[in-house]
Each structure stands twice: as C-alpha cells, then as structure tokens.
C-alpha cells in the first residue's frame, strides 16, 4: 500500500498554537479590555431589549413588518414572535438577539471600512481574498478554541467567533459595491472637483448602499447560524436549549428551540431585506 512517508512532517497548527500562546502572554490586558467592552455592549443591548414589555415588542415587530412590507407580513411576523413567547423561550430569544445584534454591529464597523479600502487597493484585496474564503469555509467550531482561550467562556467568545464567521460577506459586498459604481458617475464626481472623501460620501457610498445592505443582510444571517455553535462554549440563549436537548435526546425541546431560531431568523432576514430595498434607486 502506498502511504505518505511519515518522516516528512509539517504541523502548521503548532505554529498557530504558538501564535495564540504568544498573543495571550503579551496581550492579556488588551483581551481583558476587549472582553469588558463587548460584555458592556451585549448587556446594554440585552437590558434595552428586556426593558420593552413583551406586548409592545410584538406590536413593534408587527408595525415594522407592516411599514416595510405589508399588513399580512407584519401579522405573520407578530405571530411568529408570539409563538416563541408561548413556547416559553422569550428571555432566551432576547439574549440571542443581543448577541446577534452586537456581533452584527461590530461586523459592520469592521467590515465596511475594510471593504471600502480593499475596493481601492488591489494588493489588499488580493491578500484578503484567500483570508475571507478561509474565514467562511473553516468549520465554525474551530473558532471556538482560540475564542475560549482569549476570552474565556460565555458571551464574549461567542460574539468573537460570530464576528469572525459573519464579517466576510460584509467586506466582500462592500468592496464589490464600491467597485461597481458606474465609471462615468465616479468621473463626474471628480470632474467637478470632489475630494476623495466627498466622492466617497456623496456618490460612491450612496450608489453602493443597496449592495452593502445585501451584505449586511448576509452577515446577519450568518450571525444567526452561529447561535447554536457558540452555545457550545456557554453562550446563553436559544442555542443553549438546543445543546441541552441534544444531550437529553429531548425531541420536543429540540423542536421548540429549533423552530424558535427559525422564526427569529425569518423575521430578521425579511426585515433587513426590506430595509435594503429602501436604498435601491435603480
């Protein structure tokens, strides 16, 4: 039998491990500070969301759905969110929502500037492409390991892993959108004496907005899909129930928390899609 010779060996994981160790050793303070910041954001968002009475929350979802799409859709979304409450997962949903919102906000803050910059800079773009591919295809569980080492257990590593997994589409689509601004439109901006900043803010970004919004929608969806994964390292919320249900082979509980995640995902997807449609101008 032909087998790969055992004498030649290369263990890239070892170097990554060394890198992580080195980071921990030298940047512990930085990670601690980052942990505090992320914690602070998540808890504030969670507090804010829990502050809204449940009936008002349902009404809000209904109104958003109605305004952005149609009366029927609004009613549908309200019923879905109502169902999550009836199942008894309201608080878990709020917690999941807080993690998702935090991750998405941070993804946008990181992703859009990088996307814009890579649209202008071909070298950066060439460098980013394999990195982004890797970030998206690497099994998401893998991120949990360094995330745990950097940030311990619980919410913060969950947010970190979610950001790593869900930022690529935001970067990619922002870059694509900026590059696809019609040539004459960009020329017109410069021909009238715009600075680069003015051309970006007054012409390129507004033109790119629909595609950027599509990127944000994808980012949100990916963040939702990390909910269960990140519960493996102790993030609370709907995902946690799924993990427990798996351990107990509890079909009912599994279905209840599973369907709640689906409902939440549908609502977030439709609402962000509608928002991105608002930005379209042929």
């Amino acid at each position, binding site marked *: 039998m032909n087998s790969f010779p055992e004498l030649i060996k290369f263990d890239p994981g070892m170097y990554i491990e060394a890198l992580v160790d080195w980071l921990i050793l030298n940047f512990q303070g930085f990670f601690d500070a980052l942990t505090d910041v992320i914690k602070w954001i998540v808890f504030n968002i969670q507090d804010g969301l829990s502050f809204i009475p449940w009936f008002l929350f349902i009404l809000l979802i209904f109104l958003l759905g109605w305004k952005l799409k149609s009366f029927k859709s609004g009613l549908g979304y309200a019923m879905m969110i109502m169902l999550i409450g009836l199942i008894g997962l309201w608080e878990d949903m709020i917690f999941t929502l807080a993690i998702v919102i935090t991750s998405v906000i941070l993804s946008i803050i990181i992703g859009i500037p990088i996307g814009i910059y890579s649209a202008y800079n071909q070298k950066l773009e060439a460098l980013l492409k394999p990195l982004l591919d890797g970030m998206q295809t690497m099994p998401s569980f893998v991120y949990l390991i360094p995330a745990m080492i950097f940030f311990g257990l619980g919410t913060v590593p969950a947010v970190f892993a979610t950001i790593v997994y869900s930022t690529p589409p935001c970067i990619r689509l922002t870059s694509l959108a900026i590059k696809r601004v*019609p040539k*004459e*439109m960009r*020329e*017109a*901006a*410069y*021909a*009238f*004496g*715009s*600075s680069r900043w*003015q051309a970006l803010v*007054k*012409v390129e970004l*507004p*033109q790119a*907005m629909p595609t950027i919004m599509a990127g944000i929608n994808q980012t949100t969806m990916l963040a939702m899909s990390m909910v269960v994964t990140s519960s493996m390292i102790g993030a609370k919320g709907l995902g946690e129930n799924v993990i427990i249900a798996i351990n107990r082979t509890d079909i009912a509980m599994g279905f209840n928390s599973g369907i709640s995640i689906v409902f939440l995902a549908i609502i977030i997807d439709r609402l962000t899609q509608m928002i991105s449609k608002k930005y379209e*101008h*042929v």
Partner: protein
Amino acid sequence: MSKKIEVKNLYKIFGSKPKLALKRLKEGWTKEKILKTTGQTVGVNNASFTVDEGEFFVIMGLSGSGKSTLIRCLNLLNRPTAGEILIDGEDIVKYDRQQLREFRQNKVAMVFQNFGLFTHRTVLGNVEYGLEIRNINKDKRRQIALEALESVGLKGWEDKMPTELSGGMQQRVGLARALANNPDILLMDEPFSALDPLIRRDMQIELLEIQSKLKKTIIFITHDINEAFKLGDRVAVMKDGKIVQQGTPEEILNNPSNEYIEEFVKSIDRTKVIQAKNIMRKPNALVSIKDGVRVAIKEMQASNISSVFVVGRNMELEGIVTIDDCVDAVKNKQSSLKELLRHDFYKTSPDEYIENLLENAVKSKYPIVVVDDENKLLGIIVRTSILSGLLPINSTNDTPA
C-alpha cells in the same frame, strides 16, 4: 481672441510601463507593435492643438481613436504620460491635488456620453452637485441650479429622479449641471451619441443657442462627421491616437489631407456644411438707385441678364428690376428706377446652410441675394452655384466624361 487651451505634444499611454512605451513610440513603433511587445496601450500619440477663447472645437474620430482619452486629459481624469496642457497659460499637468480641485471646480465642467448622472439624487441635487462641492450655501446653490435648469428647458422637473426622465432630458440635466458651475471651458464627451436622431438635432441646435449666449470655450467629442461639421468652428480628426488633420469644416471638406479623412468626408451631407458665403459670388452687374432706367437696361444688356439688383449709396439692397419693366418704363417716358423695384426675391444671411436654400433656389425666378445684418448686399447665389457647391472640389475630375 486669446488662446484658452494650448496642448503641446501630449501623450497618454495606459499600462504599467508607460515610459518604455513612450520611448518606443518616439522611435517610430506603431501602436499595434507596442501593444504586442510591451502590452501597453497607446491612447493619445503626440497631440498638439490650440483652442481660442469662445471657440467651439470638435474632436472627431471613430471608436478607439483616442478622442475620449484626449478629452479626459484636459481635466486630468487621465493623467498624461508626457506633454503640456496650458490653460490660460498655466500648465495644469503640474498642479498639485488642491490646485487641481480648484481648477476643476472653477474653470472646467464635463458632460458625459451616458450622462453620468447621480441616480440617487434628484435632478436638482445633480445640478447642485458642483456648487455643493464648492461650499456655496444652500439657498444660493438652489437658486443657481434652478436658473441652470430653466436655461436648458427643464423648469418644473427639479424634484424628479434622473431615471424618470427620457434620454434627451437626462442629458439636459447633465448640461445644466455643467453650466451651473459657470465654467470657462465645457468638455463634452460624445454628449449626444446616446440620443435618437431627432432629439440629437434639437440638442445640437440648443447647444449652439446656449453657446451664442454664453460664449464658453467648448471641446466637443463626436464620431459623427455631420455633427462635427455642423457644430465646430474648427474640427480635429483623430485616428489611432493621433490628430491627422485640423481646420475649419470648409478646409477639411475641400482638402482632406489623407484617404482616411476622405472616407469620412464622403459620408457627409454637404448641404448641411456649405454655407451661403461659401458659394455666393459677386454679381456681374449692379445698379445704383440714383441711376436711371437707361443705365439699368445697358447694364443688363452688357451682362446678358434679364434682371439686376439695385443698391443704395452704401451697397444697401433696394430691390430688383427686370429688363421687361425697364423697357416698358422707357416707352412710358419714366426714368426713375424707384417705381420699378420688385421685392419678390429671396434674401439670406451669409451663414445660412445650402440645405435651407434649396427650396427657394428652385422656386425663385431671380438669384438668391446674400445680405448682412445691415441689409448690405454681399453677393448672389444662382442655381448652378448651389449645384456645383455640392460637389466635392477634388472629385469633379473623377466624373466620367
């Protein structure tokens, strides 16, 4: 007239090694050879020309001839590889970023082939753009933009989105956006090529009207020779990045400098280019209003014609008399020409195109008379000179005997 734009030995080469390509180009390599061996694309090859203030300068060429590349050098959307571009005596190629922005904001504006309108802004927002960049306050820029829109006939459309407008109207917005900035120089990159023929004609006429009012210096790109000759005070013809000939439409039409331009010129409708002043000639005979009937008869007999134009002391046109009327007058012992004057002839200005004279030339019994603004007689046009004016000068020899 003073020189507004002076372009000297301008080169533009696209690619990563423009200097190498430039060297090869100066050694006499062809554009194709350079592309093959170095991978560099020659856009503009040693272009030189001057444009006077208030002049309408047309650059004509087929697609790929480098005309759009050239016009983009004039506001440095394309940075030239070599050469000078003097505008009001200053070499704009040497401008730093800030100077360039000021130059673009104040001196030059551009109109694009596919309009280049900002689809996320209203019509008014588009026209205001240049003013917004210059930090002009909101009320003022609204006022200027509305005036500009009115001047292109778009009053009342300011709150529409550009995509709601037809092509012709969109280009009016493009023109208004350029005019709102009150630039000295208008760069127009095939502005009417995307429009259908009827609308194109209207836009051409309107542009000429605007030009006669505002006296901008206009650089206009087109691939349509009829458009070039209709609009341009002077025309430059480009091929493979080079300017192969420049001159007034007349000069190019009558002396095409090579086969390429001849090919171009063949397709032109000469009735739209040749003007009355190009084909009029001095009348064989003229009579002064003070002269008597007998003098008129003698003049007509001498030149073997049956009618003659009558002018006043300063060549101002009084009318025309016919030989028959004069002979009758002699019989009736009348001697003054005043009572015999007829006015049923056709008058035209020297700038009128033959196109518009044809019908009257066929209908009228008398020659068409060309007068200036003060009614002074400049010349006459007979039917045969219209016909011969339509023949290209150097093709008369080619006609089989």
